[in-house]
């Protein structure tokens, strides 16, 4: 439990000191995470990449963002708008964010809960990756699925053998998500 947010006005001075000591390191980390995410946000706004965008959620918590990818041309996702949620751990960037598709998507490397199988979000995560690089990787994953380790085996098979049928599944599953 994080005591740093506790209302210390009514607490005894001793208790205050104790909680302050125990949470100093934690708070320093949180500051570093916040600083890093603010930098990322600034970069995204100053030099936006075509087809991707991301912004922290309106609740004021910088640790959860919503992002949007536009489906690249010449892929079955051409022109589709796909929403994702980013949840950053409090040791970010030394651990990957949790990234999920909110928009229902039919893709070999995404399961029906929106969970994504992508190495850079797992053991190949690097502290220099960021929201932008993750979104660009996901954008290219839409056009080049990794069919060697599919989460959706049917999608992998159709991608390899029947592109038309694959695209029908994509469009059937897609549903635009309204703004919150």
């Amino acid at each position, binding site marked *: 439990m994080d005591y740093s947010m506790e209302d210390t006005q009514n607490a005894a001075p001793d208790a205050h000191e104790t909680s302050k000591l125990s949470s100093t390191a934690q708070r*320093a980390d949180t500051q570093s995470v916040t600083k890093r995410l603010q930098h990322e946000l600034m970069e995204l706004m100053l030099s936006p990449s075509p087809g991707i965008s991301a912004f922290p959620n309106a609740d004021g918590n910088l640790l959860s963002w919503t992002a949007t990818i536009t489906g690249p041309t010449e892929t079955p996702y051409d022109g589709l708008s796909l929403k994702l949620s980013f949840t950053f751990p409090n040791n970010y960037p030394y651990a990957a964010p949790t990234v999920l598709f909110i928009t229902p998507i039919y893709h070999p490397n995404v399961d029906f809960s929106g969970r994504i199988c992508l190495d850079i979000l797992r053991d190949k995560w690097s*502290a*220099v990756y960021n929201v932008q690089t993750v979104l660009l990787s996901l954008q290219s994953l839409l056009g080049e699925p990794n069919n060697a380790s599919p989460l959706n085996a049917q999608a992998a098979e159709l991608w390899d053998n029947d592109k038309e049928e694959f695209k029908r599944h994509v469009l059937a599953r897609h549903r635009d998500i309204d703004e919150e």
Partner: protein
Amino acid sequence: MPVSDIPFAHFGPYSYTPDRHYFPSTGQPQFAAPFSFLTHSIPQITLAFQQGRASSAYNMAALSPDEMERFQQLSNNFEPNVQGPLVTPKQSSHAIADEYANADPTYATKTSTLALTHPMSRIMKGDGNCGWRAVAFGYFENLFLLRDPLRVQRELIRLKSMNTLLDQVGQQEHLYEIFVDESEAVFNQILEAIQKGIQDDSFLVHAFNEEYNSNAIITHFRLLTSAWMRLNPGRYQAFLSLPLEQYCATRVETVKTEIDEVGLQALVDGVIEGSELAVEILYLDRSEGEVVTPHLLTPNRPSVGTIRLLYRPGHYDLLYRPEPIVTMAPVVNYQYGITSNYSPWDQGALSFDVDPHLMAIPNLMMDPAAFAVNPSPMSAPVSNSYRMSPPHDLYLQHTPPPVSIPSPPVVPRMSAPPPPMTSAPNRSSDGPQIRLNPLVMKNNLSHSLPVTTPFKNSPYNQAHFQNQDFEPIHWEPNESRK
């Protein structure tokens, strides 16, 4: 030293390691290279699991697909539950020997020898960063131990100037600056500690145990290594089983991929070597021999300090040699203080000159032409300088209470001619300039005295010539006669 200069046999110890069979060449293709069994990331642990399953397939056949699925999940998600701090304080290496006491006899022998040659060690947490952490910690620790503020400043500037390498390979400053800042903070802590005269290294241990900051420093070192490799692909590509760019992205820049041989060499070449520190690995494996196999990663040249890594298959820790009891600088008269059957002589009873500087000159001692007893004019000043000379302190510490019957000091037998002196006194022109212990010159003395093996600190020990820091003592006769 470029990697290409390493003889391939250097990787030899591993060919004797039975552990190798856990990483079959039929496994994942990227592990097929010579270095395959040196890395030890989580996927390989998985591989080991799978190997275990394959070898006991008849047992597994009894399991339902659901159970198989569950085991696969467990295997995929397996992470060793490692305990303890990221970096421990220095502790006795006997702890390592104890760990292996009941293991393979080779390990038991090697670790008990190790506890003697390297009595202290520092254990790194095996969380996938131990090799990186060991080198980074060893680097900062050596800078602190040298207590040279100028050097610390110089290193800080050197490391920060390497930001240009990061820029050259396309890293973005707004992403890497937090890592560089954290390293800079440690440099500043070291400077402050040196200026305050702090001897205790616990501030450094503490800095490396703050997980967030520790990760930042390691990331900084990883990014510098990666940039260095990308800018010097010719030195490393031949040793990699996958394209260098991919290697850097998936093995070096990642947050929890353990360092392998190539990455370690690149870290040393690119980041550490410029500091004039040496890096040595001591391999603890089941290869032949009774001692761990040492290997120097830096060029064989004078260094200001050494980062010593203990490598056990899959893990790196730090090792420390015994604290130097004496420095090499004034190598005089140690044979008296150190000989085991030593008994001090009564200085007043013997009228010869005990000037330590003169006693240290071996070929003069053996040269009858140089020998003449002429003690009286110099005796008083000499005894003063003797008392004040640093080795005398040591001599006192090791001196047992005087015994009533003085026995002559032992003169170690020289097994080879001593090093040539650069400034031998001109004896023929102005007569002997030196007075020696008369006992040395007794004809039958060498037969009557017990001859001891030269102690390792003795100036007669030829092992000094293998020490890269060794410098012969130059005796200037005029200086000590003033």
